[in-house]
């Protein structure tokens, strides 16, 4: 493709994307007319081509480094400690996937294809601005994605072992983290001292606290629609951590007030749904959350087990003694051992994820689970059987839904989600003794 063609494509898709972003927000506002005012901040941040892009550009011009990452294994605390800007660069745009089809087969994970396409046309401001990209090769797609991107961007590979609770795995991972620390120091020219690392860890711990508050509120009552909460969670992957924490705390203050006043965002008798599966990136891949919360009968996404949502900030870094070596151990362990990604396996089959799901179902009073995967994801798809078995035993309905980075299947998925919501609603009503 010529430069001109690329530019045209980029502008077309960017304009379309801006439209999608504002449409998404309009839809979210429509469902929840009394949305808290502070959500305005998150709506602005949701514009990936807006304020944040400018901010990062300015910081970069001042000499700060931008370190992109493709997966939640990247040690963000180390990036922050080196005074660099961490930003997640996995693509959430549907249209670039078609560009990616030119390079890799169509069976490949749509997120990977879309990221390739996004790089080809230079769509993502964060991807373009990254000085380097950390790529953990957690699955086949990610492994080769790094290679393909390495033609145009500097890629740092961060290997995670496939079994996480063996002592040798931890040793390996710690070495990887140490090596990554050196690389970050080399790039930024900033030495990650114990003091800096402590500040970064405490900053992220505060963010975790804000997130936990949000979760605690969602446990009790439907004061915030799932889509809004998911947007808030995901925003931290590109936003400034300190500011995000402040705004989220303000949001939680408002939500806690609403809990007391019983100002619900939707009826408490709505079925409470949990989505689990492959990441759902803003802005285009909001398909399913929209359908769930706009369905008749309406569902509420009370929680999710997505690395683009609740999993980002759930596990804090637990530091025992604030010495350099202990902090580094704590950071390393948090990213490896607390993760529930299906890229891991164990004798009992990634029981960590199942435990997480079961705990959530109890704590958040989940009525049904949507198991969502992008087509081509072997890891998540193959784990479904075990998850289903356990959830069947617990008599929690679970529905498997796989989809592509395309808008064409919205009609089909709509009927299925509506049927599932109908089923959940009937069950909920029956269990409460009300007539469905």
């Amino acid at each position, binding site marked *: 493709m010529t430069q001109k063609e690329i530019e045209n494509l980029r502008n077309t898709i960017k304009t379309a994307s801006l439209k999608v972003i504002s449409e998404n927000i309009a839809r979210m506002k429509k469902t929840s007319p009394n949305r808290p005012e502070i959500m305005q901040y998150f709506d602005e941040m949701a514009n990936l081509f807006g304020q944040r892009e400018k901010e990062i550009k300015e910081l970069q011009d001042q000499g700060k480094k931008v370190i992109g990452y493709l997966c939640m294994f990247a040690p963000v605390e180390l990036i922050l400690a080196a005074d660099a800007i961490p930003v997640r660069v996995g693509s959430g745009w549907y249209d670039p996937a078609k560009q990616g089809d030119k390079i890799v087969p169509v069976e490949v994970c749509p997120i990977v294809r879309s990221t390739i396409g996004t790089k080809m046309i230079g769509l993502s401001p964060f991807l373009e601005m990254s000085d380097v990209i950390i790529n953990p090769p957690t699955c086949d797609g990610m492994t080769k994605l790094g290679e393909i991107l390495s033609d145009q961007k500097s890629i740092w590979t961060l290997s995670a072992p496939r079994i996480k609770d063996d002592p040798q795995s931890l040793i390996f991972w710690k070495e990887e983290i140490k090596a990554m620390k050196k690389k970050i120091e080399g790039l930024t020219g900033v030495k990650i001292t114990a003091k800096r690392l402590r500040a970064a860890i405490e900053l992220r711990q505060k963010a975790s*606290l804000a997130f936990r508050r949000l979760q605690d509120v969602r446990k009790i009552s439907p004061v915030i629609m799932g889509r809004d909460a998911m947007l808030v969670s995901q925003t931290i992957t590109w936003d400034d951590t300190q500011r995000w924490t402040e705004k989220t705390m303000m949001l939680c203050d408002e939500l806690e007030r609403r809990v007391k006043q019983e100002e619900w965002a939707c009826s408490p008798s709505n079925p409470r749904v949990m989505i689990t599966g492959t990441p759902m990136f803003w802005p285009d891949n909001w398909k399913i959350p929209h359908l769930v919360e706009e369905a008749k009968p309406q569902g509420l996404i009370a929680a999710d087990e997505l690395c683009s949502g609740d999993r980002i900030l759930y596990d804090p870094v637990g530091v025992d003694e604030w010495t350099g070596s202990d902090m580094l151990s704590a950071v390393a362990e948090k990213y490896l051992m607390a993760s529930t990604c299906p890229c891991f396996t164990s004798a009992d089959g990634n029981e960590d994820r199942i435990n997480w799901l079961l705990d959530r179902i109890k704590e958040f009073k989940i009525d049904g689970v949507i198991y969502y995967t992008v087509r081509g994801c072997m890891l998540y798809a193959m784990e479904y059987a075990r998850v289903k078995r356990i959830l069947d035993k617990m008599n929690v309905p679970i529905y498997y839904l796989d989809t592509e980075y395309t808008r064409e299947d919205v009609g089909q998925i709509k009927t299925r989600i509506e049927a599932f919501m109908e089923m959940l609603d009937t069950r909920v009503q029956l269990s409460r003794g009300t007539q469905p």
Partner: protein
Amino acid sequence: MLAGLLIITIWIRDETRKISYLRTFVQVASLIGIFYLFSLTLWLSVVLIVIFAATIFLGRFFCGWICPFGLYMDFISQVRKTLRIGYWALPEWLNKNLHRLRYIIFVVILLPPILLFFLDPLYQQKWASALFLIGSFTPLTILLGPLEPLIVPWGETLGFSGLSLSYPYVRQVIVYSSGIFVSINVFLLIALTVASSFLVRRFWCRFCPTGISIGIVNHLPHFKWAPIMHLNKVEEKCTKCGICKRVCPLQVTEVYDQKGGDIATSMCMLCLRCAEMCPYEGCLKANFNGKTFFKSRNWLKK
């Protein structure tokens, strides 16, 4: 100092330190308590039997909250932390083998004197005191703690009189030896206990015979319930994040390895550091006879 500690415990904001400070408070209180308690003469053997019996019920609670020796080791650790020096975590295989050493040490301390007592009447008096069938704690030597072996043997020379060795193993070792062996043994003791706990947290505790009573008793069919004070984990809430395993001063791995339920281990001294640091609410609990008196919470709310 006690008052100071109490104030710190109540006012401290840092959620991840509250229990630790409380424990230090209790430890210091216990030290002072023991000091005054043992100014009444008390037979050492009685003390030992009481501790061993209590351990069957309370687990190694004594070790974590009362033992003055533990307090000294914790103090040395605190010095290390203040100097910003990292600890040395023993490799797991070494730690596990040290656990087994406990039984051997127990036998070595108690068995020879009993045998020799019956075999060699000439040394009856000496052995008797070595066996502490008679003999008491001296308050001063409790306070001296780990430095005891340094001072007591030369107490007479230095002008301290009336000192007698209180710590059992110390007594054994010093009394058996003579001449150069006294110094070697003293050196060994100090090295083993005081010096090494600088780098390895609670080093002595890993092979201290206290706690083997649980280990032994658990093998008996009717005593599976022992101890009634222990840790408990809720399986679903555990994310296997490994924080509990990392922060444990004794490197007890059962709290991490076991999926859920009561944590069965004869090593845990119930310092509750793991429960204090576990970031998932209600996951790790400390139970007394089934009732939870402390459970992990969201310590982010500092």
